[in-house]
């Protein structure tokens, strides 16, 4: 019975999850827990993942393929970013009920993992430490994005 609680070897999937910045600080047991909450989705090239202004229910992690983030209906001119494997997007859905700020569509065939807001919220109730680790990583990621968008001379140092 004790063996059931021994640290188990990381499977390739857990290793992939552990390499994501969002889950980088989680222990193998926590990663296994998160893996149990993730939904795997497959999208064809050009398929829409979510629309701009749609109410977000989940964040997505690119496991394979590339995803285009763009303005709604302007896949070419309104291109904001193109993200590859290991990148998290749609993460603001985990924080509030505000609508999506851009459209996401598959730039090529891709595999995504999604974590729903309700699962994240229940994680905050049952596994506060794990949820706070993810929330901290999320905050760091958002801060990094904020710095990248604002040039150094426009930044206000606090």
């Amino acid at each position, binding site marked *: 019975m004790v063996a*059931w*609680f*021994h*640290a*188990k070897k990381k499977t390739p999937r857990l290793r992939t999850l552990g390499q994501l910045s969002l889950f980088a600080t989680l222990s193998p*047991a*926590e990663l*296994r*827990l998160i893996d*149990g*909450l993730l*939904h*795997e*989705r497959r*999208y*064809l*090239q*050009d*398929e*829409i*993942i*979510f*629309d*701009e*202004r*749609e*109410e*977000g*229910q*989940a964040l997505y992690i690119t496991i394979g393929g590339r995803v285009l983030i763009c*303005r*709604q*209906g302007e896949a070419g001119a309104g291109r904001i970013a193109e993200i590859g494997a290991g990148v998290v997007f749609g993460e603001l859905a985990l924080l509030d009920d505000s*609508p999506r700020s851009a459209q996401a569509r598959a730039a090529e065939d891709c595999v995504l993992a*999604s974590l*729903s*807001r*309700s699962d994240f919220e229940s994680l905050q109730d*049952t*596994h506060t430490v*794990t949820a706070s680790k993810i929330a901290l990583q999320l905050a760091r990621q958002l801060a990094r994005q904020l710095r990248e968008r604002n040039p150094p001379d426009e930044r206000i140092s606090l």
Partner: protein
Amino acid sequence: MSESVSADSRLDLSSGPLVWAATITCTMLLLLLLKQALWLAVPFLLAVVLYYTLYPAVRRLALAGATRETAAAIVAGCFFIVALGMTALTVSWLAAHSVSGEEAFFRYLEGGRRLLNWTLTVLESKFDFLARIGLSAAMGKKSAEFGGTYLQEHLLLGVAGWLPSLLLTPFLAFFFLRDGGRFLKFLGNAVPNAYFERTLYMIERVDTTVHAYFQGLLKLTLVDTVCLGLGLSLLGIRGAFALGLLAAVLAWVPLLGAAIGCVIVVLVTATDFPADPWMVYAAIALFALVRLLDDFVFTPLTVGRSLRLHPLPTVLLILAGGAVAGIAGLIVALPLAGIVLVIASTIGSIIKDPRLRARHAFARKLWSRRVNVDLQL
């Protein structure tokens, strides 16, 4: 253009008349089906309660390093060991006190019979035609038969008949704990990408609804216990709050459970106050008042509110559930309607959202083009 398209994509799960009509129709159809599997309804409900009670422990163990399967097995196993231990203790206690318990049972039964005789005698003295037909003697004979034969043959055998199906409860609870998450994933995987986030929202709301229903039920039990306990205390009846709790728990089975609770209160009062039958009538009046409050105020405000149902349909659904599927219908009509309403609202919101349907059609075309790429003539 993009503004209007996007605005349609916002979540709007408000329930229109069509959604309500679909909800009531589907709930009644499901209740009819349930009637065919009555023996499964109670263990299933108890298993759901157990699931929500034990699930946090399973998650704790999963965090400690156990797999979901192991955690479910450990938690369910520990619970069953404790339950078995408590059952063994209860059975041994009952065996040790069986003689005094049996004596008390027949003493309370005799108290009830005395009350009935007194009431009928008073009625016969007021109304001659009742005396002429010998109501008191006839009812006395019937009540003796009820106590001696009917109660033992029907009620006790009925309870014994339900016990095997109750054994299903731990098995169902174990599989809910072990495979619940997998089942939700299975459901999520079956949904097209365009509807995926709506489905996530629906699953979350169904979970919240069921959880809230059982929370509401516990609140209702507390309110009933306090009201009955206070009322019976004011009447000076011994063990008022214990009786109130027993009656409140029995009321989980609407109507029938309440009737059994009332009979127990009457028997105890009639035995404890043999010379004062009016005390019994006061207890019955109190019980009736609490039941009325329960059915028309407390239930809509606790269970009904937790399901976000209006008090009027809440009462109507309970009555309709009882008419369609009897006792099981009474018990499950509300939670079932709550779940069906969430599903119907979600489907309604998808049907009303042209953008989501267009996205799904677009994804199907992409798949079709992909699989037919080498099949063009």
